[in-house]
């Protein structure tokens, strides 16, 4: 019996199959080599490079600078960095470097500057109250899109937190002096002190009143204080009350009623001091 020769189409498919297999193997090998070379050198540069990348945060910007990448692979390397800063539910700012393509054996320096718009916090009543009276944390989300063109794209997403101190940190009231004004009244000077540990400028009008110990529904008001405290500033101010002599008794605790008007929001609370 004579042998049957394979049809031409079958031969074509055989060559196509062999070609695809070789292409796949070569692609996988070259990709593995490129990925290994890039990952090994990038991690080495990041950890023990001559000029490692720097991350700095201030009240207006978050900056990632001096990130230097060299493509030691066989394929073009594309990279995009994007960041977002969030405080509570409020997005303070976001930025992206856009797609940066690094051809093989080329070096690129990448910087990412994220503008922080802290004034957005002023519009949120609850968030502002939290920042004024409690320490909180800002979340910074960072996304790195990296790819070996045109075969593989990888996306890394991570976030880190930065502690933000209270705007009115360590707020205390102390009776500094009591001076007689006349036979019936005294001038009581109450010192208010706090440190602004938040990145926000604390700027508002503080109203203080002292309920009478002797008579119900009677309050003595101090002149309002225009508070203006820059970040990291220790703030000291005096509340001046004119009170009947009998209102202040030595050793007693008194409750101040306070109202702080800040950017259209009014925050009310009570604070104690001892005579």
């Amino acid at each position, binding site marked *: *019996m*004579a*042998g*049957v*020769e*394979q*049809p031409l*189409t*079958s031969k074509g*498919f*055989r060559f*196509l*199959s062999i070609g*695809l*297999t070789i*292409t*796949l193997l070569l*692609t*996988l090998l070259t*990709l593995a080599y490129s990925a290994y070379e890039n990952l090994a050198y990038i991690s080495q540069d990041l950890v023990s490079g001559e000029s490692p990348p720097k991350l700095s945060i201030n009240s207006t910007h978050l900056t990632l600078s001096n990130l230097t990448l060299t493509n030691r692979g066989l394929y073009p390397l594309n990279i995009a960095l994007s960041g977002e800063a969030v405080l509570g539910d409020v997005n303070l700012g976001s930025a992206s470097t856009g797609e940066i393509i690094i051809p093989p054996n080329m070096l690129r320096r990448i910087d990412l500057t994220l503008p922080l718009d802290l004034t957005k916090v002023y519009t949120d009543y609850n968030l502002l109250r939290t920042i004024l009276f409690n320490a909180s944390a800002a979340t910074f989300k960072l996304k790195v899109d990296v*790819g070996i063109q*045109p*075969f*593989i*794209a*990888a*996306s*890394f*997403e*991570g*976030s880190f937190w930065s502690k933000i101190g209270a705007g009115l940190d360590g707020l205390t009231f102390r009776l500094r002096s009591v001076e007689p004004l006349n036979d019936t009244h005294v001038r009581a000077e109450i010192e208010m002190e706090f440190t602004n540990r938040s990145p926000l400028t604390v700027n508002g009008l503080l109203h203080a009143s002292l309920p009478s110990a002797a008579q119900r529904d009677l309050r003595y008001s101090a002149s309002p204080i225009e508070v203006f405290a820059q970040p990291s500033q220790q703030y000291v101010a005096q509340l001046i009350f004119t009170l009947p002599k009998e209102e202040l008794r030595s050793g007693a605790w008194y409750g101040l009623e306070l109202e702080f008007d800040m950017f259209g929001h009014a925050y009310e609370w009570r604070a104690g001091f001892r005579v």
Partner: protein
Amino acid sequence: MYAARAIQAAIFVAINYAIFFAAPVLLFSTTGLITSELEATILGYFIVIVSLTILHILLKDHIIGLASSVGLGIVQALYIYVITKGGELTISYSGLMLTLNFEPIVYLMMAIPLVNMAKQISEYVGRSSAQPIEMVEVEG
């Protein structure tokens, strides 16, 4: 003839074990993506692939052999697509998330069994249509 085919089938079962079971399980275990569900899927597909490979090799000249090779091509391509989740894998590790997208490679990997399947069909059709011609001497 069947002894030789059985040896060939055994070799292909070993190759299939390495490609369609051992390598994926090792890869997914290393990357922490292995789950009992994924392992069961890999095992299920591997059993189907092995069965179809044996059928295809043992019954090469039969229509069942052709049907097996067609099924094998489709199952292998489907297997590659399913276990690689269409070329998009996500790995989470202590707050960091890594998403890998390698669709072009998945399609290249899927193309190979499909082209092999087309080759088997073409060979079978070619064998059926081109019958061997024998010269017979007719006595006058």
